């Protein structure tokens, strides 16, 4: 179990930095068309912010903020958004993930519909990546402490 660090400098710095890191991660997700980024990169940066919080403030305080149940819901809803948009295009008489058929719902021309479709998928991917990376880190840190307890 990762204990709470008793060093005041990194606790204060992590507390101040985490909102800015998260808004930077959302910027990277949303601007995937124009600059390097996209869904996977933004999800990794979001997970990095949560790992920073976990390293400095300990596992218990981070779990008060985002519980394991919320992480599981995030990962599932990320995949749901991805598959949901694909099936929506299928329902509207197109191929799977053929975003130009979304133009009927959104009332824009097919080029813009493709742009919005990809944006939606990137958001789903970002959520799923963040949830999975956070839970992997959490499980490894838990498993290590229980393993050493069994040794002792």
């Amino acid at each position: 179990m990762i204990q709470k660090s008793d060093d005041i400098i990194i606790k204060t710095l992590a507390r101040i930095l985490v909102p800015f890191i998260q808004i930077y991660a959302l910027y990277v997700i949303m601007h995937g068309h124009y600059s390097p980024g996209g869904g996977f990169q933004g999800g990794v940066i979001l997970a990095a912010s949560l790992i920073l919080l976990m390293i400095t403030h300990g596992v218990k305080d981070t779990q008060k903020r985002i519980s394991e149940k919320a992480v599981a819901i995030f990962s599932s809803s990320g995949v749901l958004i991805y598959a949901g948009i694909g099936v929506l295009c299928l329902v509207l008489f197109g191929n799977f993930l053929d975003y130009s058929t979304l133009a009927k719902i959104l009332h824009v021309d097919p080029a813009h519909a493709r742009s919005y479709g990809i944006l939606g998928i990137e958001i789903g991917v970002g959520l799923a990546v963040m949830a999975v990376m956070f839970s992997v880190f959490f499980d490894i840190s838990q498993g290590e402490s229980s393993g050493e307890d069994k040794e002792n």
Partner: protein
Amino acid sequence: MEVTLLIEAMDTSFRLMEDARRQAVDLLNTAVKLTSETRTVEEKNIQAIFTGAQESKSGFQNLVVTFLMLFAFWVLLSGKYDLFHLALGVICSLLIAYLTHDLLFANVRVGDARVIAWRFFAYIPWLLYQIITANIYVASVVLGPKQRVKPQIIRFKTKLESDISWVTLANSITLTPGTITMDIRDGEFFVHALDKKVADDLNAGEMEDRIAHVYMEADHIYVQDALDVAPIFGELKKGL
């Protein structure tokens, strides 16, 4: 100076009035047994007015200020100012401000925040000037003969009180070449310095004074204290 005296006078007068009120309430409580329940309920109301004025109900204001800062950061990062991207920015900033608004401003009272921000931006050019002069001195020491480098560790206690000012002082010491903050333990700073001149510059304490001025610990009034006290003046008069 006069304001300090005024605030101290107000403080003593509040204490006197509170003592008098407490004694009066005690007398009433012991004298009347039948209505004792309603008396303690009234005393709880007056107590709630005192404590309610002192905790700043700044949850909502924290949210708004965090939202504005995050949205300004978004606009700075993204070069596109059309409606779609700005709307996306508003939604994302709102979401993150709602999730993390108690992280950013945990200890600062809201009435002070504007003054502190302005003084902080005035402190940064002085820090840059110190970095440049210390840089030149450390370069001259390091490129010279080896005997000029005499590393030493200094311990000192500061007069600063809140954790943000400690962190600002530690970071400023580390940013200035020649000194590195190693640890802060029980309120004592452990600093590793390269040379005696750099250590003397640190012990003179000018950086501490400037940081105390930035975070309003050298002044004798706090803006938020005056704002807290003002509305309960009337209640005090009514409750006595």
